[in-house]
């Protein structure tokens, strides 16, 4: 990217006796996320007894440990070793992932109805969340900010908060990232499948509930399916995985409704393509790599 970001030394912290938390940087960057990806992927392959779960996060990661089987101090030693050997991705590292088309109806009636009920908790009660985001990010129109969000793909940098919620960071240089604050006070309601935005992260809310992210639109397809009735959920109740590349694509009401009926009759499948890219190449020339990723997706 325009300016290479140097990460500070990783910080290792014990989250009580059952968790190790590793902060790669206080600021979000693709570099920090790729560094976490490198270590957590290597740790997963080692399949160490006593490692209960490995949780990559945006600019950090967390490992859940069973201290009766593995001393957290030994785990930290191993993580430090991994940091020094694989902690920065080698220039020729190839990330194998999948690219997924995720349709979104921006300015939909359902989130609009909800956001109107919570204007008193918003920075700008006179505008919609999208109008506010367009203005503070220097766009002339809502269409401008929608175009920016849909033109380049996003990478899933963390899953969590609630089951299946993907935090997505756009694969563009920092100066092109869209940023919005969270609501002044969190809402008590967010419709299921809301396309939300907070900080520099885009999310799709898996279930209805409280939330603080700005609401921009609605996805017709679920990211979470307890009944596992859709084919994409045959193996898992949540769809997105960390490191997945998602392309948010703006759709109209006709496509939204058509997709909804395919979800409801159980025939919906996400458009998914296997893909690979070099994080180093992405950092050097994001537009070129993004073009290739989208070409693979829609070929």
């Amino acid at each position, binding site marked *: 990217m325009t300016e290479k970001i140097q990460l500070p030394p990783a910080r290792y912290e014990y989250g009580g006796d059952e968790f190790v938390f590793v902060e790669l940087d206080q600021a979000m960057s693709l570099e920090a996320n790729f560094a976490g990806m490198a270590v957590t992927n290597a740790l997963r392959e080692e399949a160490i007894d006593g490692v209960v779960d490995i949780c990559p996060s945006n600019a950090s990661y967390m490992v*859940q440990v069973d201290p*009766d089987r593995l001393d957290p101090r030994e785990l930290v030693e191993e993580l430090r070793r991994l940091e020094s050997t694989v902690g920065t991705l080698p220039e020729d590292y190839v990330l194998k992932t999948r690219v997924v088309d995720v349709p979104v109806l921006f300015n939909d009636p359902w989130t609009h109805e909800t956001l109107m009920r919570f204007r008193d908790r918003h920075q700008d009660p006179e505008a919609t969340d999208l109008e506010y985001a367009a203005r503070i990010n220097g766009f002339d129109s809502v269409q401008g900010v929608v175009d920016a969000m849909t033109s380049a793909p996003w990478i899933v940098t963390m899953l969590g908060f609630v089951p299946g919620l993907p935090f997505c960071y756009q694969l563009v240089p920092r100066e092109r990232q869209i940023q919005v604050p969270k609501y002044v006070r969190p809402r008590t309601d967010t419709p299921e499948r809301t396309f939300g935005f907070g900080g520099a992260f885009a999310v799709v809310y898996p279930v209805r509930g409280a939330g603080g992210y700005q609401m921009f639109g609605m996805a017709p397809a679920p990211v979470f399916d307890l009944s596992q009735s859709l084919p994409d959920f045959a193996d898992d109740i949540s769809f997105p995985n960390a490191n997945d590349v998602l392309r948010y694509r703006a759709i109209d009401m006709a496509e939204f409704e058509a997709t909804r009926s395919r979800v409801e009759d159980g025939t919906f499948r996400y458009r998914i393509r296997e893909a690979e890219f070099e994080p180093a190449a992405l950092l050097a020339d994001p537009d070129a790599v993004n073009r290739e990723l989208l070409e693979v997706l829609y070929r």
Partner: protein
Amino acid sequence: MNELLVRSGGLYTTVQDTGRFGYYHMGMPPSGAMDVYSAVVANMLVGNPDDAGVLEGTYVGPRLEFTDDRMVAVTGADVPVTVNGESVEPWTAMRVGAGDVLEFAMIRSGCRVYVAVSGGIDVPVYLGSRSTYTLTGIGGHQGRKLVDDETLPLGAAGGRARGGAAVPEALRPALDVPAELRTVVGLCSYRLTEGALASFLGTDWKVTKDADRVGYRLRGGSLDFTEREQPFGAGSDPANVVDLGYPVGSIQVPGGDEPIVLLNDAVTGGGYATIGTVISVDRDRIAQTKTGDAVRFTSVDLDTALAARRDRRERIERVRREIAR
């Protein structure tokens, strides 16, 4: 019959075991009994495996009617228990038969009671556990708390338990307040000023009404964050960090004046600075505090946390030997 009749669901009673593991990375918390010691010991008393399904009642326990010969044991909070109106001993294995009704009065101290029945509460295992996670409605009995007049499945009762076996007083948990919560300070504690960290540890915090399986909100002081230019992607509030994973038991202070201890059903991550983590053993302790009770945090290192865990393991094994005698 292998059934248990729920005559009254009580205030908030759920089926729990020792938890659901391996799904934290996708955002699913472990759930499971909040007071692990009491749940495991209850199972031991009735001859169940340690991780069998038990009932966890909150404030007001359930009223249960048995349909066949079973062993039953009640542990956890200090509460008068009756069978058919007659007072019975908690922390003790009891024989019951068809038509017997187990009931609770008001809790004297503590917050959560555990009921183990021989054969275990045999709800379907979901993702490796019988624990209830109500937020997404999974596990346990239909993914929710118990309601009046319904039926729970029981496993086939084994014959290993000894009626009258009791846990000695010394091996029952202390329920006195203020509850001392040993805490490994760290994570993003650099966000607090030195004075704020000292004040966090020096304050007796009160448990507010917002205290449940998701987390405990506390009141009693106000903590300052160090001033900084917020890092990229963190959000504008001084309590905000770039969204990260939250350990179970971790403590955050969103507005500076209301610490939240995240517990078994909590969100797995988010954008608030965490300042430390209550050690796993003392989650049993906070689980037995209720609205209005005082808690205080004591800073300990990892060695102390691991020693406390070994100590709890030894106490559990001592109970096992006592019961087998």
